């Protein structure tokens, strides 16, 4: 399989894991495969996460994109429960928007090809 596709699915898996571990009741995901980038949207409703956790998520997803770290460590993303992969997802994406209101979490990630 194309590594680029696997990387996108790993990013999605990491985000869905974060939402599920926060006991989210409904998770909507959407991926747009545009010409120059992937746009990944996650909407987790009734999630049980503290504000500190959300702020940590926002900070880690905003780690600068690091292609070297991505090439080396991308296989780690997606299936862990310790949380360090969130910064890896940050290093694999170019833009991260995290919004949280009334226990609903919205995440938008842009990954340029």
């Amino acid at each position: 399989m194309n590594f680029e596709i696997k990387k996108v699915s790993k990013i999605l898996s990491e985000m869905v894991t974060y939402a599920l571990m926060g006991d989210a009741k409904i998770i909507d995901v959407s991926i747009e495969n545009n010409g120059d980038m992937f746009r990944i949207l996650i909407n987790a409703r009734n999630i049980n996460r503290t504000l500190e956790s959300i702020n940590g998520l926002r900070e880690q997803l905003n780690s600068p994109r690091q292609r070297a770290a991505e090439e080396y460590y991308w296989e780690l993303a997606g299936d862990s429960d310790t949380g360090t992969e969130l910064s890896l997802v940050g290093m694999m994406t170019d833009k991260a928007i995290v919004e949280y209101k009334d226990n609903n979490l919205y995440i938008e990630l842009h990954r340029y090809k």
Partner: protein
Amino acid sequence: MAKENLSDYRQVNEKTKFLVLSIFPVASLILAFFVSDYNSIINGLHMIITQPDVLLTDYIKVGGLGAALINSSLLTLINIYFLWKLKFHLGGLPISAIFTIAGFAFFGKNIFNVWPIYIGGYLYAKYEKKSYNSVIIISMFGTALAPMIFEVANALSPSNFSGLSFGIIAGIVAGFFLPPISAHIIRAHDGYNLYNVGFAAGLIGTVVMSFMKGYGFITEPRMILSTEYDLLLKILLSLFFVILITIGYVLNDNNLVKGYSKILRMSGRLVADFTYTSGFGATLINMGIMGLLGLIYVIISKGTMNGPIVGGLLTIVGFSAFGKHPRNSIPIMIGVFIASILNVWNTSSTTVIIAALFGTSLAPIAGEYGVIGGIIAGFVHLAVTMNVGVLHGGMNLYNNGFSAGIIATLLVPMLDVFRRRNER
């Protein structure tokens, strides 16, 4: 598109980071001419290049302190230049790679034997239609296999151009396949071995050595170690570590503790970039403290400073930007120390001391599973690292990374059993 920086800590511009990173190699360059004259350095470099580089070959003994310093300085400065030209963001990963190069340039990596690995990495990037930016760090770590070039050349046709050509080709092939292998192998230990390339290079080295042994080639184990610069090296490295702490203090808004508690709270498991989470200043403070901690371990163990120990200390310093801190590293060192008392090995021997220094590759285990988990990992590490070198014949300079990969692969699922039970 640049992301908004949401870290609470003061960020430092890239030029300053590059300047800080250049302190050690520039100081080494200047110092070399104080401890040796020009002719000794040239002769020493010739000796370093033409001798086998398998573990443990101390370049300070082989070529003299001046030549070893020049070798480390040139190799490090060239790599810093590569990162500068490629417009690298100097996060924890490239910092750890640069210090690893600087350290291993005292025992195994030299200005001649590393380049085939880079060429292989470059060809892989071209083949995969990627920018070299994404591969060069793996190539930098991948120079762990640099001794293979001489060994293959020596096995096939010693002192012959065709033998050398085969050696270089072997290095290029290894450099080509290291990126996919090291990315794949990381799943085995789930990021609990910081020297992941050491694990990959150990497996490659084992296969190559097995193949060579099949054709009757036997490697000569080496134990060439210097003893004459013990005090000088201790003083110089202490000074360097204090300088790192001082610069870190200034860049951390004249504060020693700001951001540091955040570093200590992290498990260190890959990927933990302290420069982003806690700022460059706090990271430098951690690097200096960890260097001093390593040095204290050497002194407590009554060890004598030499090339491999200098390499171990510099590698710890580098990875203290990317996973290591006192909380997760001390238990590993304690584990190795206890093992050295209870086992047959001598606590003050270089091999045991570097097992403790490089054994901090397993620091994420202590960070994640606690002090006891870390001590167990360190305890087991000493026994394993003393026995796996024979598999690759010393061709993989990151022998401890190989050992740590094996231990993390086995130990993490075992420790997980108890953690899951506690969580239920």
